């Protein structure tokens, strides 16, 4: 049977959304507190059941405690803000300064993105690594586009192989990041619809023709500007503590960049392509939280709430029936 104290700690654990070592440390500290309080209450004459419920009541709402602990830990340093903004900033400069014409810069940037992603993944997936991870998905997208340039029979042969593999890889990365926090997945996926939007604006037929490259010269400053704006918003995202503010900032980043694309792409994109892009953008914000719910419901043993006699917010303390 799940005791109220176990349930309390489980709610804290699932609501914390911190790195694994920080989460373990918080739970260990709360367990130590509960141990002391529980012992004191049982020594004062309460039954174990009464002591457990009183203890939960004295601790206060588990969700509130978890939220406040998240806010105490969530604020990144300026260094982390700079690290998180760097890939967007580099891509912004890549277009704004016309580096995109040099294959050397492109290769160096791809190498940097992959190295930073691997390094961050191995260092426990700090929040700054997620924008880098988003760009590390680009080579997979580029490989798909390159398949279109192969002779027709090769394309037909390889595309059915490519799509399941690419989708599996995308799904795997999203699941892994969602396990930490769905917001990290959204942070990671955010550049993808923006890149896709600009790509379709330049090459509505989905192929990089000479005409599309000519258009790139015209659009490059605006593409650069949209990614520099994204970099500034992401740096702010890392510095703020409140979760609702972080969600708001990602939404602002999505709306702002999409508005820029829509403005410059007017008459170049069909209504259906625009709608498709809007759907993908919505997906960036809706799929990760839904996946998180799914992952957690499969990971956690099901809690039979009828077996839990006490709730954090409504506990009557046995001594004198005093309400805390």
């Amino acid at each position, binding site marked *: 049977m799940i005791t109220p104290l176990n349930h309390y700690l489980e709610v804290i654990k699932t609501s914390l959304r911190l790195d694994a070592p920080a989460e373990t440390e918080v739970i*260990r500290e709360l367990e*130590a*507190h509960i141990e002391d*309080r529980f012992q004191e209450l049982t020594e004062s004459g309460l039954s174990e059941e009464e002591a457990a419920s009183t203890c939960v009541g004295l601790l206060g*709402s*588990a969700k*509130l*405690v978890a939220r*406040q602990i998240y806010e105490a830990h969530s604020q990144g340093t300026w260094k982390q803000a700079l690290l998180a903004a760097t890939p967007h900033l580099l891509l912004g400069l890549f277009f704004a300064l016309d580096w995109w014409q040099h294959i050397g810069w492109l290769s160096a940037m791809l190498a940097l993105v992959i190295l930073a992603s691997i390094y961050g993944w191995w260092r426990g997936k700090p929040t700054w690594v997620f924008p880098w991870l988003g760009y590390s998905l680009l080579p997979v997208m580029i490989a798909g586009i390159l398949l279109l340039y192969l002779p027709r029979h090769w394309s037909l042969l390889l595309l059915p192989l490519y799509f399941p593999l690419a989708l599996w890889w995308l799904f795997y990365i999203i699941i892994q990041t969602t396990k930490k926090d769905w917001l990290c997945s959204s942070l990671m996926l955010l550049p993808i619809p923006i890149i896709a939007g600009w790509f379709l604006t330049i090459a509505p037929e989905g192929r990089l023709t000479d005409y599309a490259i000519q258009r790139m010269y015209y659009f490059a400053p605006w593409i650069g500007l949209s990614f520099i704006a994204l970099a500034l918003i992401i740096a702010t995202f890392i510095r703020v503590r409140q979760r609702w503010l972080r969600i708001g900032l990602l939404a602002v980043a999505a709306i702002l960049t999409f508005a820029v694309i829509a403005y410059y792409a007017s008459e170049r994109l069909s209504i259906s392509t625009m709608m498709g892009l809007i759907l993908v953008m919505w997906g960036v914000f809706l799929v990760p939280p839904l996946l998180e719910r799914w992952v957690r419901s499969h990971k956690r043993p099901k809690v039979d709430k009828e077996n839990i006699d006490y709730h954090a917010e409504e506990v009557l303390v046995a001594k004198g029936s005093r309400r805390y």
Partner: protein
Amino acid sequence: MASRNDLMKGGSDSLLLCLLEQQPMYGYQIIKELEARSQGYFRFKEGTLYPALHRLEKAGLILSQWQTLANGRQRKYYHITAKGLAKLVLEKDQWQNFFNAMQLIIMPENV
């Protein structure tokens, strides 16, 4: 009229720093000490003490360290840092000014 909790919100950091200035303590010990010294006036919702401690630690005002007690249990002790001590001096000064001003208005006969 502001509730006791509202009044405490602005002063909780000062209270914690003040207690830790005297000796390193762990969370449960802080709650007991605060309650005892204030004769039951200051009572945290116990869980909310930890976010406050973690916030102070992130700000570099206190440091934490796990220690094993004589009974074998492990407790996370918080120590005040030099930065915390400097901040406490400023806060004590601010509170003193606040109390003096309040007293001048609310209880002028005691001044």
